[in-house]
């Protein structure tokens, strides 16, 4: 297989941009990535793009409408939708397009604008004899944070995780996010402030659940052999994996109403499988990783993901936070970008926050957030309906 490198990245600042068309957000971001790579849009041989959930028909074929304003060149465009894990799936398809030898220069891109507040239900136009579990859970009144709260409460019961431990995850993310000019929330939160924020889905408080944002990311990938033409700092894609759920997964996943757990199947099995596949592909293990970007959609997520990704034993992740090992400068910096906690979710695009961060870190261009001596970084991003993908990048 052809080895693959990242030669350019772009990331739109995260926030709310009602006055700016999403196509423009995407174009600005893509131009940033192209300039960073030193290539022209007309050099791009294939576009892999995230397909939006909230953007109606136009958003479904986001890649095509983006290319229309970018300037149509007739290249293959593939629109990918793997829920909030879409960016990881986009990266995987872009990676495979080059690894297979089909193309040498590929753009991976994603942009999204989020609705306000809790993500709402979406209409279904099919005729069906029974409502789907996803329709039902909205009818019953179960927004996404409830599912995370169920897992979180169980964890607290089993392992003695406290409210303060949950708050601490937000504190750490905020200390990183304040240093990131692309982040939406740039303020350091104290444990007290987090604990005093309104309860939303007990045990998760307002500041422990990530907001919903608008944002975009773009990545230019290249055949490693040809990357030297464009850059002296190619970042190597050591692994790009996608995984789905395993039968018997005990997780109260989004969406579920009846769960059929089987012995030996891990919580968020799709994430466990994706991480393992990535380590196998890269030929390394968690001990070789210098920093991690994980999907901190809520305060529960970092605790679960550090275990799922193999960085500690089950039930011990909160101890890493208590010992401050997860801060930049600690043993295993977690989300030096500031995480989704500092950016907010922008479903199709949020995984690109992670890709951008790892590339910047490995190029030693992360400024005040720089993880000293970082050589290998891993990202994992997760979505509804048991979607996950993992990415390992190295110098």
């Amino acid at each position, binding site marked *: 297989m052809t080895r693959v490198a990242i030669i350019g990245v772009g990331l739109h600042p995260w926030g709310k941009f009602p006055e700016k068309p999403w196509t423009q957000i995407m174009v600005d971001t893509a131009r940033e990535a192209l300039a960073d790579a030193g290539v022209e849009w007309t050099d791009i041989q294939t576009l892999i793009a995230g397909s939006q959930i909230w953007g109606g028909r136009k958003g479904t074929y986001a890649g095509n409408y983006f290319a229309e304003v970018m300037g149509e060149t007739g290249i293959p465009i593939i629109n990918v939708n793997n829920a909030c894990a879409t960016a990881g799936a986009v990266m995987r398809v872009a990676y495979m397009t080059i690894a297979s030898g089909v193309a040498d220069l590929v753009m991976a891109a994603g942009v999204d604008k989020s609705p306000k507040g809790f993500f709402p239900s979406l209409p279904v136009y099919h005729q069906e004899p029974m409502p789907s579990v996803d329709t039902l859970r909205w009818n019953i009144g179960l927004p996404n944070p*409830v599912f995370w709260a169920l897992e979180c409460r169980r964890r607290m019961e089993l392992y003695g995780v406290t409210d303060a431990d949950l708050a601490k995850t937000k504190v750490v993310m905020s200390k990183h996010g304040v240093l990131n000019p692309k982040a939406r929330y740039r303020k350091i939160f104290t444990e007290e402030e987090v604990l005093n924020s309104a309860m*939303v889905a*007990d045990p998760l408080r307002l500041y422990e659940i990530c907001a919903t944002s608008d944002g975009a990311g773009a990545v230019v990938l290249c055949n490693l052999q040809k990357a030297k033409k464009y850059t002296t700092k190619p970042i190597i894609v050591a692994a790009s994996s996608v995984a789905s759920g395993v039968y018997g997964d005990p997780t109260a996943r989004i969406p579920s109403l009846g769960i059929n757990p089987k012995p030996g199947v891990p919580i968020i099995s799709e994430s466990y499988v994706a991480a393992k596949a990535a380590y196998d592909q890269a030929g390394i293990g968690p001990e070789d990783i210098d920093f991690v970007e994980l999907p901190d959609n809520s305060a529960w997520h970092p605790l679960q993901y550090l275990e799922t990704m193999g960085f500690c034993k089950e039930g011990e992740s909160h101890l890493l936070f208590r010992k401050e090992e997860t801060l930049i400068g600690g043993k295993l910096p977690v989300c030096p970008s500031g995480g989704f906690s500092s950016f907010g979710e922008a479903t199709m695009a949020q995984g690109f926050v992670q890709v951008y961060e790892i590339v910047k870190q490995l190029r030693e261009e992360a400024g005040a957030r720089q993880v000293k001596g970082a050589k290998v970084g891993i990202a994992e991003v997760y979505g509804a309906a048991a979607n996950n993908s993992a990415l390992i990048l190295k110098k």
Partner: protein
Amino acid sequence: MTEKRQILVGEGLFTWPSDKPKLIATHCKSCGDYFFPKSFTCHNPKCKEKQVEEVTLSQRGKLWSYSVLYYPPPPPFVPRDPFEPIPIAEVEIPEGLKIIGMMEGIKPKDIKIGMTLELTVGTLYTDKNGNDVIGWKFTPVKA
């Protein structure tokens, strides 16, 4: 005055009307697994025969985990006015399934993991047309 209608939150989910309503599920006679809501096939990838039947589930189970919603869920759910926090239960039943549903008849501070709960069917909320939406709920079993 128009009469309030009762609307099921979904068809084929529980026996209704009934004095002792039960959840309707699929049982696979081949591998023994249960599925809720019911399905036209067994979802076990290792099961070859997939001989399924419709069954009803045990009404009692133990609280596996819980949450309490302090923010009103978005439409189509219609929260009470004024809003009251909504406890949510994940209940492990003898068939091995964990069922998620609204909890009632308990104050948030009294919820304990491991407590025994019983299935009931009743009004989840009144929809925007004034109809009662009927669904399953869990209530604590008094010792």
